[in-house]
């Protein structure tokens, strides 16, 4: 995470662009209904806060969500929009250093 916020406007990043140790809030998704329902049942829904344990870097990523660790495929992670944050209550949010927000690919 960047040390100082550059812009206080909440931005949304695909989950696969977050880095290890980043903490973020799920802020939307471009998933099919089935995938959204599955993730929701697993505890990952809008407003869920999680920490990235292994960044995607083109491959699958791992997030810590409460007591659960979830491994997500790169395709799925690319469709999950997040709002990076510094604090557990998802307060001050900004883009990670050196990264620009981009839109996730459309759902198939």
């Amino acid at each position, binding site marked *: 995470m960047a040390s100082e916020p550059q812009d206080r406007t909440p931005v949304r990043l695909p989950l696969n662009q977050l880095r290890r140790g980043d903490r973020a809030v799920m802020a939307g998704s471009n998933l099919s209904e*089935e*995938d959204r*329902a*599955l*993730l*929701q*049942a*697993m*505890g990952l829904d809008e407003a869920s*806060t999680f*920490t990235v*344990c*292994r960044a995607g870097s083109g*491959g*699958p990523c*791992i997030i*810590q969500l*409460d*007591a*659960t*660790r*979830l*491994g*997500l*495929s790169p*395709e*799925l992670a690319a469709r999950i929009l997040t709002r990076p944050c510094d604090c*557990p209550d998802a307060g001050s949010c900004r883009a990670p250093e050196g990264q620009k927000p981009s839109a996730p690919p459309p759902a*198939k």
Partner: protein
Amino acid sequence: MATPATQPAPQAVPLRVAMVGNPNVGKTSLFNRMCGVRAKTANFPGSTVEARVGSASVGGVDLELVDLPGVYAVDLDLPESKLCRDCLAGRLDGCMPDALLVVIDATNLARGLRLFKSVASVARPVAVALTMTDLAQSRGLSIDPTRLSVALGVPCVAANGRAGSGIEPLAAALRDAREVNPQVLAASLAPNWVDETVNAVVGGPNSIGSESDKWTDRLDAAFTHPLLGALVFVAAMALVFLAIFRLAEWPMELIEGAAGALGGWVASAMPEGAISDLLVQGVIGGVAGTVVFLPQICLLFFLLALLEDTGYLARAAFVMDRVMCRFGLPGQAFVPLLSSHACALPGIMSARLIPDPKDRLATILVAPFVSCSARVGVYVLLVSILFPDSALLAGLAFAGCYALGAIAALLTAVLFRRTILKGKSRPMVLELPPYRIPSLRSAFLTTYDRALVFLKNAGSVILAICIVMWWISAYPKADAPEAAVALEARVQAVATQLESAPDDATKETLAAEADALKAEAEVLTARAQQEQSFAGRLGNAVEPAFAPLGLDERLTVAVLTSFLAREVFRSTITVLAGSGDSDDDMRVAEELKRATRSDGTPLFDRATSAGLLVFFVLAMQCLPTLAVTRRETGSWKWPALQFVWMSGVAYIAAWITRAAVLSLGGAA
């Protein structure tokens, strides 16, 4: 405990309880603890997933427990969720459960409560088992089951299947289970009900497990690393297979020895004839030929159960998904495919690790392409014939067989996933459970369950197939050929001379001559039997179909009989070619290399041998594998496809190989 223990009232029938819970919450550990070996895997019509059913008598409460597959919600469009819905609605076997046991992980209360909410509306009495309370306590959490019981309006007890704690109170809670009251049902519809309930019981969802676990972080950093994780996985699997090959060796020999002794005893106790042959060769020989794989199956499932229980297997699937997804398979498919190197039977059975039905089916269909240990004998024979003087070329050819099998499996997987099994795969969302010390008891019970399933299959479908195959190979009985009769007469004559031999040296010479003549007579008789049997006649009839591969009628019969099991090829061809069978591979290979066809050309010319080797790498020649595929897929359609596809690919590849070698001047 939420409900005080009361004196149990006598039960007329056991309380039928459906166990519902998220994956990895310790539900099956509770089931195993209560039922022990009094459980079996149940396949329900129309379902591709399984549940386990068992009976228990705990604290005076008789229970019939149904361990449903772990689900994140019962209303998802997934096979395991559908099975749960069907069970809760009484559609599985026509019986509604008397009560539901919702198993909730104390370290993940919010997710458990969401599941509770989704099943609360079922008009059935409910009780809650709170598991992982030890882990919650180690994370500084204190959850009071009584407060949770009050919040949910149903009995709630802390229980630990591994340690065996809380089992009797759990049985009492099930006896006292009650329907979720309308007030709780109404409250649970509120959007914040889960968070508020968690707050009331443990003080907020973010406090649960939010602290970083350094050990988990360190282990995950290694086990899920793209390169290091793959190396760890390969090393772990290598150890598993080394253990399987080494440790299974002596029980396999024991089974073979016991079957041989039993067959010998039955043969000596019964008069010679069809019934004796049926029992000894058909029933005992057939079942022993399949049951001999039981030690490998037990070891594989025991070790996989331990690995799964540690939490490692989920990490391995995560790492391998990166590789396997390129071939349309999930990361979990790597374990069944690797297991198939030992034997396709445990490989196919271990495909149960794969959650998506299409992914699982694709894995089952391609697993037999992988070179199993039964192929090794044929590879050794044909490679020795092909490259008798070059260990390097022989080694390369041997390695090439393994590579060809693996490539064929992966390419077939790509093809099937894009055609007959086309459709969206379940996206990889893997829960990585906490690392734990594995439970030996659970691993033993899982192994016991898998072994029972396998033995049941071996005793029914496989037995029937073996009897049919034995019958067409052994009947009709052929008379001994004239040459064999003449040889037997010479044996008698030599035996007479032996009785009056003047010295020991002459006796030894005559005894050796008698043995050689007798062996030759037996080979001639066996060859006549092979040729006259239904299988032999079939071989002669279909010989034109195999002629493009360079097979004459003897090789055709040997290939046909090897569809029972590949290892049969060697014994059949040594009989038909008139060479003696021996444990010495090189000697057998040399004798077969000298064998000729009716026109005087070599039986095993280079082009035919190369084509035959490719054929054996790719062809489906294992009836037990087809029977297990039928059992695992619930239909004969898939083993039929497996057989036709693999044999078709094998035929075409063998033809191409032979043509290529011939074009390079490799006829001799």
